């Protein structure tokens, strides 16, 4: 995605929750996905993950990998509810913006 439009913090929260609703993931992989699709910088993600974790939208667990710990993040039921809310709000928002961009805001 081009960096024309900035990804705000709510949208970033929503995208992380959406990634994690597919499968559990660790920081590096999440960052690579987010970087590719949303063009956010590599250091943006940790504070977001930590905050979502504190808000009990995510939980972290450790897996042994190549003789060391790897911390995976998993979405919680609170996180899923939050994601549903974001999806509803996004659909509404997208519709409004589409209306303006594609038909100049005319109400037909």
């Amino acid at each position, binding site marked *: 995605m081009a960096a024309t439009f900035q990804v705000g913090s709510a949208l970033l929260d929503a995208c992380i929750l959406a990634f994690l609703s597919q499968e559990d993931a660790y920081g590096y992989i999440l960052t690579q996905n987010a970087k590719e699709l949303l063009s956010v*910088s*590599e250091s943006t993600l940790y504070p977001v993950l930590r905050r979502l974790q504190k808000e009990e939208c995510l939980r972290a667990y450790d897996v042994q990998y190549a003789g*060391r*710990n790897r911390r995976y993040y998993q979405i919680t039921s609170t996180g899923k509810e939050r994601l549903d809310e974001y999806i509803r709000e996004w659909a509404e928002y997208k519709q409004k913006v589409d209306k303006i961009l594609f038909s100049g805001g005319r109400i037909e």
Partner: protein
Amino acid sequence: MNRQEFIDELKARLRKLPYDETREAVEYYEQYFDDAGAENEQAVIQELGPPAAVARQIIAGYAVKGSTAKVPLRESWHSAWLVILALMASPIAVPLALAAGAVALALAISLSAVVFSLFAAGAGAFIAGIACAVGCIVIAAKSFPTAVMLLGAALMLLGIGAAIILWASALSKLGFSWLSKMVGNYILRRKHA
């Protein structure tokens, strides 16, 4: 700069955070380097940017997050302090920071004044209640109806006093965490702008 230097500087810049927060962040970035692989060490350091900026994001994130959950009063003071630290560390125009800081300070002072006066009112009602209770005991032998009236007044005043104090402490928690959240959001917005 190599990986070890990056981690060491990050650790040093985060030392104002609670120990657990620092450890969590440092572990995350240690794992991040591990997952990226040794051959990408320099690329990762390039992409992450200076450790000072990484630390600033972590501190700002920590300060903001404290406000949405139920936080004990001491901790919201703590995050207010961290917000001030983040404010000082941020590369925003100094006059803007000063103006925003002055507004936040004014809000904090007025909030403290309101909370203090509520506490004083609550304590006043409480003390009056105790006085009525004492009066009730003293007068009980002489005039029974007066004693009953004083007992009623005492219970009412104690109830009102307790309600005001509870309400004031709820208000102060809410007010201060709202304030630190606003300031935190302001800093984040400036940083992303």
